[in-house]
């Protein structure tokens, strides 16, 4: 089978395992871009989503914003910004953040919005202020959904961060873009399997996060 032959060649080549173009180095760069973009996207999307979900106002504006952000083509944005600003981290980060904000924003809004009203009323009746209601009731109940929004954002960043290589940045996209120009399919296939593996690892990580942080009571009711 072709595909497995390429995979064998890629992982069997010891040159791919060390140095600036080695797998550990490229993997590390990829993880770094992902964490950076996810951090920025969460810093933008989470507070807005949680607060609008809590107050229940601005849902339409939010949906419109999310659609607009989704409509931006990541690859086009990357090339355009690089043309305008030159090579740099900003042209790489902007498309990734634009990609990740909508799922985080929309799910955190809907998660908090969908928290059982009787729980919220009970918390209010016990004399909790708005902030305590949000942090002690709404967020814990909404956590599984909030995490799933961040998870899909993370997976999309991992798979899209490959285009950074097109503007001479690093990451696992290097193998795919270089392999394409050198017509070296083993590199392309190897890079693709690494990205897919990293995305699966991300899924596993979020499964673990949910196990650790979601309160057992909430988990049982789902």
């Amino acid at each position, binding site marked *: 089978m072709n595909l497995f032959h390429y995979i064998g060649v890629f992982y069997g080549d010891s040159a791919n395992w060390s140095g600036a173009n080695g797998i550990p180095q490229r993997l590390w760069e990829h993880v770094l871009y992902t964490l950076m973009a996810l951090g920025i996207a969460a810093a933008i999307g989470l507070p807005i989503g949680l607060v609008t979900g809590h107050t229940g106002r601005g849902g339409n504006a939010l949906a419109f914003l999310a*659609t*607009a952000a989704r*409509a931006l*083509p990541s690859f086009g944005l990357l090339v355009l910004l690089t*043309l305008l600003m030159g090579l740099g981290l900003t042209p790489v980060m902007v498309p990734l953040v634009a990609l990740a904000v909508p799922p985080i924003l929309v799910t955190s809004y809907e998660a908090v919005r969908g928290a059982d009203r009787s729980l919220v009323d009970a918390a209010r009746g016990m004399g909790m202020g708005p902030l305590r209601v949000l942090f002690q009731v709404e967020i814990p109940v909404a956590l599984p959904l909030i995490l799933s929004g961040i998870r899909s954002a993370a997976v999309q960043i*991992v798979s899209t961060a490959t285009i950074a290589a097109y503007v001479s940045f690093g990451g696992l996209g290097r193998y*795919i873009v270089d392999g394409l120009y050198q017509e070296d399919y083993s590199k392309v*296939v190897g890079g*693709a399997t690494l990205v*897919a593996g990293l995305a699966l690892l991300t899924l596993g990580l979020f499964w673990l996060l949910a196990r650790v942080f979601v309160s057992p009571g909430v988990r049982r009711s789902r």
Partner: protein
Amino acid sequence: MSSFFTMPSDLQHSYLGLVAWHLQLAMIPVLLGLLIALPFGQLCVRFRWLYAPMLGVTTVLYAIPSLAFFVVLIDWTGQSDTTVMIPLTIYTLVILIPAIIDGVRSVPPETHAAATAMGFGPARRYFQVDLPMAVPAIVAGLRVATVSSISLVSVGALIGNQGALGNLLEDATQYHRPILAWSSVITTAVLAILIDGLLVLLRRLLTPWAAR
């Protein structure tokens, strides 16, 4: 302004030609994805144990970056439209199958029972009750799939001018004419927003009973 709509001759397309090609590359996979996802979704509703493995497989496929997917496919399908459309179809499936399952499962059991009591057979109940009730969930999935499909077509530019409007990006870099990149990004975004609007309209037409 003229170069916003005037395309470089090496693209061998007019502005509208690129738009039409882009829509074709993006929308055929979404339609195909919908056609495949409907029976698969129904299978998963019928046989619950199928859902987890199916979701696992599609999630792994989803994790493969579009660029890598395109390049790997060149081996089989050459540098053609098919190469771009296969991954987009699979991405659509990943988004639509869970949406369809959620939609069909969200039909209240009472509604289901009422339809059965009225003498609806399984097929008629599916087409006249389950499917219409699932329309909002399906359209929600279609919106995400369409917008991401329209955006991902551009990446096809990297595998040798198979990116429709995305091909403008290569030219913009090569000739250093940012206006071409603007044209590509703005047109793609406008297309995505327009089609998204059409889908919202479609949902309203298909679910006249829903609250506005």
